[in-house]
């Protein structure tokens, strides 16, 4: 919390070009928000299929949704934070996709539920902040 206040104080004390750059940010985008919600929803649905043969398909869907979010976020100017978040999220999903659909390794139930849970938690954080971008 303190770091947020410090950061906010720093922004308020900026002058000239630095402040202009800081305020030049990507605004709320319906498509970006929907893509983030899709990742969150797919992670929630996928967790229910852990330990079943349908898990592979759910992982593929999740990979597709996370990739769309990252690619879309990258196409928007001045969108650095969302690009960082979506890129890191995609890397988390990559491990799941690697095991299920590329290496086709045996996956433990605990790994499957933990992984989907972590992805859903992160997607929720992303959804909350992307939804509060200035209109």
């Amino acid at each position, binding site marked *: *919390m303190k770091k*947020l206040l410090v950061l906010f104080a720093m922004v308020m004390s900026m002058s000239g070009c630095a402040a202009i750059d800081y*305020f030049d940010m990507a605004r709320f985008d319906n498509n970006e928000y929907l893509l983030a919600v899709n990742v969150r929803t797919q992670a929630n649905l996928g967790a229910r299929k852990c330990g079943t043969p349908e898990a592979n398909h759910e992982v593929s869907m999740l990979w597709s949704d996370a990739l769309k979010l990252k690619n879309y976020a990258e196409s928007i100017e001045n969108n650095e934070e969302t690009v960082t978040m979506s890129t*890191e999220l995609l890397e988390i999903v990559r491990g799941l996709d690697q095991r299920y659909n590329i290496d086709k390794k045996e996956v*433990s139930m605990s790994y499957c539920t*933990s992984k989907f849970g972590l992805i859903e938690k*992160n997607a929720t*954080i992303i959804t909350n902040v992307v939804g509060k971008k*200035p209109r």
Partner: protein
Amino acid sequence: MDAMNELKEWVGNNNTELADWAAEAEAYTNDFKSGALSEDEYKELMEDLKRSEKISQAADDLAVRSKANEMLDNIIIAAGCVL
């Protein structure tokens, strides 16, 4: 609502702090020790927590930037300025 009150209210409602990554790390370690997770699964999940931290940091940055922008917009509207 003036800008300072708005800021105070917002500071008390920080969404990203709901993410408690330390609790996750403890749960993964317990699962690994009990044999529910293999070693490589455990390592991957712990790496994921580092990525989650980066997501939380970027989310905090975005939240501050969004709020600063919103407050600036409100000030401009209140002052009746047209850019």
